[in-house]
């Protein structure tokens, strides 16, 4: 077969420094287009929300857009968009991000806006009630009013995990959302939205010296508050298989998802990385192991997904996390048969191994995906911010394609061997007929 293609990498200069108040900053200049990406990442996510307050981390994310010290409600949106930019925020298991992509002449405005809400969002009763309503509509759109809503990211963790932190519904129950108070929000802000618990990143068309000055100007006087100590959320690995099912009244066809615990993505990155590659070996495209077997040959499933982390973010998640495989089945499909066939393929991979050719092509495709993510200033800003926050290693953005390329057939084999039925947690969707 053809020669193995050389896996290229990016060479973004990555500069980092810490302000006196503890805010960590990362800059990745690249002047190829007149745009910048700005991200602020706080080290708090779904796992940190208190019991009785499911969905609070996400609700609080909404409140961060509702005005701040110098900004009335709606002003944040208007100032970003009126500067030609786009914005958003999102809540994850281990972090919450806020970000903008803008023409480079609007950089200082974005920094001002982020600094203002880092100093203090306007937490009012009226805004809280309004955003509880908005979040309920978000949950209806994404979970309650559509088939396969929350599958598997909300449905599988409670099968796999036992502690509240890891197992609860991160979107939240309506009851918990409705009982949230302004005092809860103030406390959450005080505790987790400290500048010592945050990373600011800027990627794209910037001058390092100028950007540093601007950052000092706007963030320098944010009062210092240290990061809270993050609890260890680890749980013991499964010792026997777990399997649950639930009826989805809107879903027309069966589906099932399985997950296995994997090594610590931060402290044991070398052991973790092969699982990231394995997920692609199993599921990336028609030439992957499981698609070839289950979709093209057996026809027992119609689509397959495989990824690391319940939110599909292998390089933005902490321990404990999982490797997931999910399948949608044809009418009357047999989920047991699917799981058995997947087990067989894993055993075969663990036994016979993988050729360097097969591994090499998967690695090449993964490099394309990574490089494509970083072509967008915002993709770059977000990734370096989380890499700094969770690992203190933003330069990993340039090294990832190479590191993925260095995963060996032996490591893939060992990872496949670890995905045994005894360590597996699965959740099955029983279709309600799409009525």
């Amino acid at each position, binding site marked *: 077969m053809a020669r193995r293609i050389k896996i290229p990498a990016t060479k973004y200069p990555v500069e980092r420094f810490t302000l006196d108040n503890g805010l960590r900053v990362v800059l990745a200049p690249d002047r190829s287009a007149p745009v910048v990406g700005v991200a602020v990442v706080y080290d708090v996510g779904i796992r940190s929300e208190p019991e009785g307050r499911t969905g609070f981390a996400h609700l609080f994310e909404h409140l961060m857009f509702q005005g701040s010290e110098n900004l009335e409600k709606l002003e944040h*949106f208007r100032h970003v968009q009126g500067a030609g930019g786009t914005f958003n925020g999102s809540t994850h298991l281990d972090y919450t991000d806020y970000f903008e992509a803008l023409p480079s002449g609007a950089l200082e405005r974005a920094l*001002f806006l982020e600094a203002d809400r880092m100093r203090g969002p306007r937490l009012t009763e009226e805004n809280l009630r309004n955003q509880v309503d*908005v979040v309920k509509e978000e949950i209806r759109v994404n979970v309650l009013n559509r088939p396969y809503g929350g599958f598997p990211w909300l449905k599988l963790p409670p099968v796999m995990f036992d502690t509240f932190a890891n197992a609860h519904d991160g979107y939240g129950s309506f009851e918990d959302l409705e009982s949230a108070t302004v005092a809860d929000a103030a406390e959450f802000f005080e505790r987790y939205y400290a500048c010592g618990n945050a990373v600011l990143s800027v990627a794209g068309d910037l001058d390092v010296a100028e950007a540093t000055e601007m950052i000092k100007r706007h963030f320098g006087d944010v009062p210092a508050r240290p990061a809270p100590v993050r609890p260890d959320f680890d749980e013991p690995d499964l010792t026997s298989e777990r399997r649950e099912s639930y009826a989805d009244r809107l879903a027309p066809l069966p589906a099932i998802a399985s997950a296995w615990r994997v090594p610590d993505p931060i402290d044991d990155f070398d052991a973790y990385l092969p699982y990231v590659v394995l997920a692609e070996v199993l599921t990336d495209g028609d030439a992957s192991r499981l698609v070839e077997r289950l979709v093209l040959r057996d026809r027992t499933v119609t689509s397959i997904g495989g990824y690391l982390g319940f939110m599909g973010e292998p390089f933005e998640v902490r321990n404990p996390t999982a490797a997931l495989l999910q399948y949608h089945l044809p009418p009357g499909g047999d989920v047991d048969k699917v799981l058995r066939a997947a087990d067989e393929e894993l055993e075969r991979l663990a036994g016979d191994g993988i050729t360097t050719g097969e591994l090499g092509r998967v690695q090449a495709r993964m490099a394309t995906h990574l490089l494509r993510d970083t072509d967008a200033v915002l993709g770059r800003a977000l990734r370096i911010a989380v890499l700094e926050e969770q690992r203190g290693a933003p330069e990993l953005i340039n090294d990832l394609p190479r590191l993925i390329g260095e995963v060996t057939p032996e490591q893939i084999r060992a990872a496949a061997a670890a995905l045994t039925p005894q360590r597996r947690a699965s959740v099955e969707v029983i279709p309600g007929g799409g009525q």
Partner: protein
Amino acid sequence: MTQTKRPLPALLPAAPIKLPTEAERQLTNGLTVIAIRRPAVPLVEVRLRVPFARANLARGAMLSQTLFSGTEQLSTVDIAAELQMVGGGLSASVDPDRLMISGNSLAAGLTRILEILGEVLDGAAYPSDEVSTERDRLVDNIQVAKSQPSHLAREALLRRLYGRHPYAVQTPEPEQVRAVRPAQLRALHAERVHPAGATLVLVGDFQPKRALDTAEAVLGSWNGGGKDVTLPTAPGPEAGPVLLVDRPGSVQSSLRIALPGVPRTHPDHAALQLANLVFGGYFSSRWVENIREDKGYTYGPHSVVDHSAAGSVVLASAEVATEVTGPALLETLYELGRLATLPPGEEELEQARQYVLGTLKLGMSTQAGLASLASTYAGFGLRLDFLSSYSEQLASVTRDEVAAAAAKYLAPSGAVTVILGDAEKIEAPVAALREVELE
């Protein structure tokens, strides 16, 4: 909060849009190739757009699903593996105007990805086994789509908007898909998958002229011919009663409104774009600020000027809680009416203007963004330089022109409205505002 207000930093003046280096060539077989340089990452993006109007719906959908299912030399798995070897991937989709093939690979793989593309274009075999697998998958996908409120609402809106025009139905029925045979796919391919009128856009880390040479060397032999098929102009929205589509037990209603639009080259285009933004085309619009940020009726309302080859239309969508369906429609009609009868504020117009100018720059700041934009434009006979003239138009449109466009296109009296939801619960409140027709 007694603190002195901190001043908002000024924006630095934005430079005019800078177009990337590009080259274009029409090959002797009729294929137009456009190569655009953006070397920021060592990748290439590929977009091939083939005219496909009036292709049979089910066969067209199946063709896009099985185009990469094998050739004389290569199986499905071979094709996927060969592409992966250069970090590449390709996929196909259809709509009522065109067959679209999109993909990307490492820059060093440009020749190879084009070779595989060429092999498929010339020799897709539609093997019966693979066709049968994909047929079942497509049927399942359609069944799942039909359980999605967004899909059902779109289907109902298209039917209501387009009547007998080919745009009216864009998803085949499962039984139509089940009836498709490999020979029909081979026939459709032989008839319609040709370079005449097709455009290939390449964007990436290369010298444009050399990319053109590569494309010519690899795809110059793609079988010429094909026929010129165009669609009649699509009818504009014809106002009438609100069409209510029952979805019992729905916890939300899907509200869809269509209003007349104009193509990109129309003199009113820039003014309508701005009017649409002020209404509901971005987060800082009146509609979002009203029904989300003030009233909490919905999560993500949005409106857009949607362009197809045979017509343009303004589409507004919101998923609103069942119990506030009537009030949400009331506020929507109010905002449309207010914009159609009163000129927008100067500041809010400037804000919308800056937004659209800025997001044009963002859109062309990645290889993928540039490729999709250039390919979309090419489908309407435009090139990237349209961005410069469009930016100038956006910069110079006056408040009066935007007000005139709003009056002409966004008046609620001209709206086609479809609401999918629990009819038993929403019919009465909707009927209090507008005449209702139950589907």
